[in-house]
């Protein structure tokens, strides 16, 4: 009965109770939203950053190099010559050195020119349907690409020039889907993976021009691709580059229609993993000594990036705490006003035999219910908005966030909010406790 009374008292004052609940749930929502975003971002960044020890790319911004080549959310600094990085594969401290070449995309999904080790060694990916790419222009697609673009084995498409904003389609080069990857929950689910030869075949002039600047992809509009010309060079050089996986490439069919000097072939970056802790102190130094190369360690870059982001997140936390404080104040005002409106009711309850304890508990229960409704609706709102934001982030940044992640801190927050709601109700409860029934009744009744 007392629970019913407390709930009915909240429901029959929809405006004032509603304001308290809305303020409380808004602050909880913002806290949860920032908590979930930061948690998932840290997890995703660290998880991906830890997969690769060093990114070797063109000189420029280290962070940009990491974001582009590891997280696939930025543009490359430029291209590097394949022969300049071939020493990495032969270095005794290097476990694997996987070249990648970027430049094209299909419906905002990046096409990565690389070798199969990119899938198996870095992301522990596996083919769920079809086979790995062998010939140029064969592609293996991530699970999300397949689902979103409704692509299946045997389907074909034209890649677009540019990573984010396409300027023109490579109409004469038709990529063919030969494999679909199992879902990993990682960035590879959003990628289209093909051989390096595919990229070189689609961009035959890039090696002559030097590095192609992906930011100014529109400049390439006028490019006429000579499709009859050189098809990629021998795969022997690639397998030489990646000695550790040479045997996996034995079955490759090589198209040797023409020969272009290996020295001129360009890639975007090499993703290096060490096999010795000493590599951390030697390899980056060797790489950075070379004029055209720059080594960027994802773990360090991401740590710095997160340190940059953290103050902004902290400001959001402080703001949400401010709204939280406002909502607590609003609960206090709501309950005090309610006590003012209900002083005759409370007097009548006392006259009817309700003990001070019963009235005290009923008011504390109102604080409890406002806290409970506010925090639960804030929790639901926070996760729902995270879910909606996740769809946007997945779509625009190819990163899988979700609203269905929970943190132990959320339950602590829920408990704390209810406790604060109840504590806030103590003052109005004391006001009711001190109510002089005789005086109240004499004045009005």
């Amino acid at each position: 009965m007392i629970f019913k009374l407390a709930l009915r008292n909240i429901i029959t004052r929809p405006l004032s109770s509603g304001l308290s609940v809305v303020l409380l749930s808004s602050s909880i929502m913002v806290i949860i939203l920032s908590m979930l975003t930061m948690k998932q971002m840290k997890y995703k960044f660290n998880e991906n950053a830890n997969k690769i020890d060093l990114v070797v790319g063109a000189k420029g911004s280290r962070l940009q190099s990491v974001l582009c080549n590891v997280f696939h959310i930025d543009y490359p600094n430029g291209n590097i010559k394949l022969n300049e990085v071939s020493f990495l594969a032969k270095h005794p401290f290097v476990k694997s050195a996987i070249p990648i070449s970027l430049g094209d995309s299909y419906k905002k999904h990046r096409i990565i020119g690389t070798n199969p080790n990119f899938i198996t060694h870095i992301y522990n990916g596996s083919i769920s349907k079809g086979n790995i790419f062998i010939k140029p222009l064969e592609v293996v697609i991530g699970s999300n690409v397949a689902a979103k673009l409704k692509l299946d084995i045997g389907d074909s498409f034209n890649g677009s020039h540019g990573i984010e904003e396409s300027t023109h389609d490579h109409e004469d080069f038709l990529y063919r889907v030969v494999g679909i990857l199992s879902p990993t929950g990682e960035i590879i689910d959003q990628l289209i993976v093909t051989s390096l030869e595919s990229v070189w075949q689609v961009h035959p002039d890039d090696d002559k021009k030097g590095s192609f600047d992906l930011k100014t992809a529109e400049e390439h509009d006028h490019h006429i691709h000579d499709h009859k010309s050189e098809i990629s060079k021998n795969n022997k050089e690639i397998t030489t580059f990646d000695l550790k996986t040479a045997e996996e490439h034995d079955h490759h069919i090589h198209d040797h229609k023409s020969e272009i000097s290996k020295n001129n072939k360009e890639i975007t970056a090499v993703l290096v993993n060490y096999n010795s802790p000493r590599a951390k102190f030697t390899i980056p130094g060797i790489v950075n000594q070379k004029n055209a190369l720059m080594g960027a360690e994802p773990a360090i870059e991401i740590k710095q990036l997160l340190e940059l982001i953290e103050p902004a997140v902290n400001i959001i936390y402080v703001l949400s705490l401010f709204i939280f404080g406002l909502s607590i104040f609003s609960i206090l005002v709501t309950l005090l006003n309610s006590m003012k409106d209900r002083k005759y009711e409370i007097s009548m309850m006392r006259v009817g035999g309700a003990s001070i304890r019963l009235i005290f508990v009923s008011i504390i229960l109102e604080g409890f219910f406002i806290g409970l409704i506010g925090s639960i609706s804030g929790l639901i709102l926070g996760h729902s908005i995270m879910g909606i934001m996740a769809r946007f982030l997945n779509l625009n940044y190819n990163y899988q966030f979700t609203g269905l992640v929970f943190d132990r801190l959320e339950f602590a927050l829920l408990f704390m909010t209810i406790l604060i709601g109840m504590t806030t109700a103590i003052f109005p409860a004391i006001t009711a406790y001190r109510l002089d029934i005789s005086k109240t009744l004499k004045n009005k009744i």
Partner: protein
Amino acid sequence: MLLAYIFGLNQKKLIRTNNISVKYGDIDIKFPNINLDYGGQLLIIGKSGSGKTSLLNILGGLLAPETGNVLVNDVDLFSLTNNKRDNFRGQQIGFVFQTPHFIKSLSVNDNLKFSQYMSSKVNQSKIDILLKKVDLNHLKNSSIQNLSEGEKQRISIIRALVNQPSIIFADEPTSALDDGSCYNVVDLLTNLSQENNTTLVIVTHDKRIKDKFPNKINLNDF
């Protein structure tokens, strides 16, 4: 002792007061001693300011007297702790006021049920019987705010009776009502209290009802 018993001097009374008075600023108001039997009816009349409501509040344990004591069922009300007095009041006393106030957020039935809940005597059939007696059973689930003033006053009489108290104190129950409603309310109060063997004490300045009660105290005479 034997003589006192034979002449009824030691007969158990429901209400006994002894030299009670209240103080408002510099003014002392002294009240006559009251001895009321079980099932009796008493009308306390007096002008405004004569202390009618204060007396009722003292008898109901809502206001502590400046001097004297109040015994209800041989229990000295003001020797009890606040909690025990609240509990005693819930069990033994019902109140009807000039303006009936209810818990606005609850329905008619829930208001009556809450009265029983406060004294741990929840009994839905008692509520149903009383509602039928005042022809308001059809409003059982209505919001209390949708009732007319007359209906509210009838419900407040039922509320005073749902716990089967020993006494009902009614403070100006008819002052705001027209003649028809006034007599209806008085009849309802007297009949229901008689049926339930409940003692009835009414304080009023309403002259319309003074002839209905043979047992009266006029505070103007003190």
